[in-house]
Structure formats: C-alpha cells, structure tokens
C-alpha cells in the first residue's frame, strides 16, 4: 500500500465537497441543502488539517496554522447554521413550506 500523502486527503475532500454540491443542486428541501453546505465546509476542513499535518512534517512540529484556520471555519459554520435556520423558521411561519421551488416571493 502506498503511503498516504496530502493528495489522498485532497481526493477525499474533493469527493466530499462534490457530494455536498450535488445535494445543493439536486435536493429541494432547504434543510437538506443546509446540511449539504455543512458537508462542503467539512470537506474544506479536512483539506486544511491534512495540509497542516504536511506542514508539520516539513517545517516543524509547531506549525499548526491550518488547524487554526479550521477552527475559524467551524466558527463561521456555527454562525451560518444559527442564522440560516432562523431564516428557515421565519419563512416557514409565513409560507408553510421548506421547498425551495416555492420560495419565489422576490422572483420577478
């Protein structure tokens, strides 16, 4: 078996990201679309942590900048989930639907 390189993690991350893209483009339930966005953010985090590991191997054990970035990504994901789900609740109260095809109030 070949040793695991950052390229392996990049392929895993790309595949997970694509699954998230497919979820956003194909599903109609807005809650599932939000979960697909979380999958994509996780794919980015895997990439950041894999390259932080590579950096530690090459430069020195105290180079964990990729992990610090991943912490910030998790912060933004938490904020996005809270506000986004609040918007979903407010919209559901008005229109009684979570189907994005029926969310066309601002469509001209």
């Amino acid at each position, binding site marked *: *078996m*070949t*040793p*695991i390189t950052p*390229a*392996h*993690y*990049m*392929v*895993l991350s*790309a*595949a*997970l990201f*694509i*699954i*998230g*893209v*497919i*979820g956003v*483009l*194909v599903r*109609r*339930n*807005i*809650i599932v679309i939000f*979960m697909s966005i*979380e*999958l994509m953010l*996780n794919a980015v*985090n*895997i990439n950041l*942590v894999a390259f932080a590991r590579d*950096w530690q191997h*090459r*430069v*020195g*054990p*105290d180079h*964990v*900048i990729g*992990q*610090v970035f*991943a*912490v910030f990504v*998790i*912060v933004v*994901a*938490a*904020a996005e*989930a*809270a*506000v986004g*789900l*609040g*918007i979903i*609740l*407010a919209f559901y109260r008005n229109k009684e639907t*979570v*189907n994005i095809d*029926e969310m066309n109030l601002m469509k001209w």
Partner: protein
Amino acid sequence: MAEALAFYSLAAFILGFAVLVITARNTVHSVLFLVVNFLFVAALYVVLHAEFLAVIQVLVYAGGIVVLYLFVVMLVNLKRPPEAHQDPRRRSRLGLVVSGIVLAQLVAIAAFSATQAAGGPAPVEASVPVAGNVELVGWQLYTTYLVPFEVASMLLLAAMIGAIILAKREL
C-alpha cells in the same frame, strides 16, 4: 501502513454517510446520518494528529449544530414532503452533470499536484515554548491570530442576536 488502513476505512465511511445524508427521503434520517458523518470526520482528525479539532468537531458539530438542525426539522412539521412538488423547469440532471465536471477538475488538480516535486520551505527550529496539539493551537490563536479570534467572537455574538431576532414570533 496503519495510517493507510485508517485513512481508507474512514474515507469509505465518510463518503458513504455523506451520500446517505443527501439521498435519505426522511429529513430526520438525514440529520442522524450527518451526526455519524461528523463523528467519522473527527476520527480522521485524530489520524491527522489534530486532537483539539477532533474534540471541537464532536462538541460543536455533532453536539451543537446537529441538535439545532434536529430542532428545526421537528419544528417545521411537514404535512407533505417537499420532493412531492416538482418544478417542471428544474434540471436536476444538469446539476449532476455540472457536479461531475467540478469533480473531474478537482481530481485533475490533485493528481497534477501529486506529480510535482515536493518543495516547500526549509525546516526551522521550534520557536514556540510549548508542545502538544492543544497548546500549539491555543498559542497560535492567542498570539498570531489574536485579532481574528476576537473578530470571530464578535461574529458569534452577532449571529446569536440575529438568530434570536429571526426566530422570535413577534418583535
């Protein structure tokens, strides 16, 4: 060898549960598959020696965000599933094709960068007086990235207030 075994099995579980998340008919099932997916990603962080991030992943994602999703799924009690309403102009197959093109691009980039010679900066002496993953991440957060750290706390405060305002029935 052990890392390869861990990587391939964890990758299979991560991708499998991600596919289940976006294909499950029942939204509650989707959320539960998402929890398992996040837990396997946390295990992958342990393989990558990012123990602090693994703990944060379990606490914030699997413990916090997913519970928020479950609450919303159960608050929006759906009488009819959203997939029942079909928009005739919606092109799901086009979406799949576009996703496939993007996947091919990403894999091509990964394959190309794997063939390049490993350059990178020269090794330097350790400049931080701590060891261990949690200490290292904390040191970086509170020295080099102190300002972004404080901005992130402001973002969380704004998101908290925004979520309360949005979810309130009347102001």
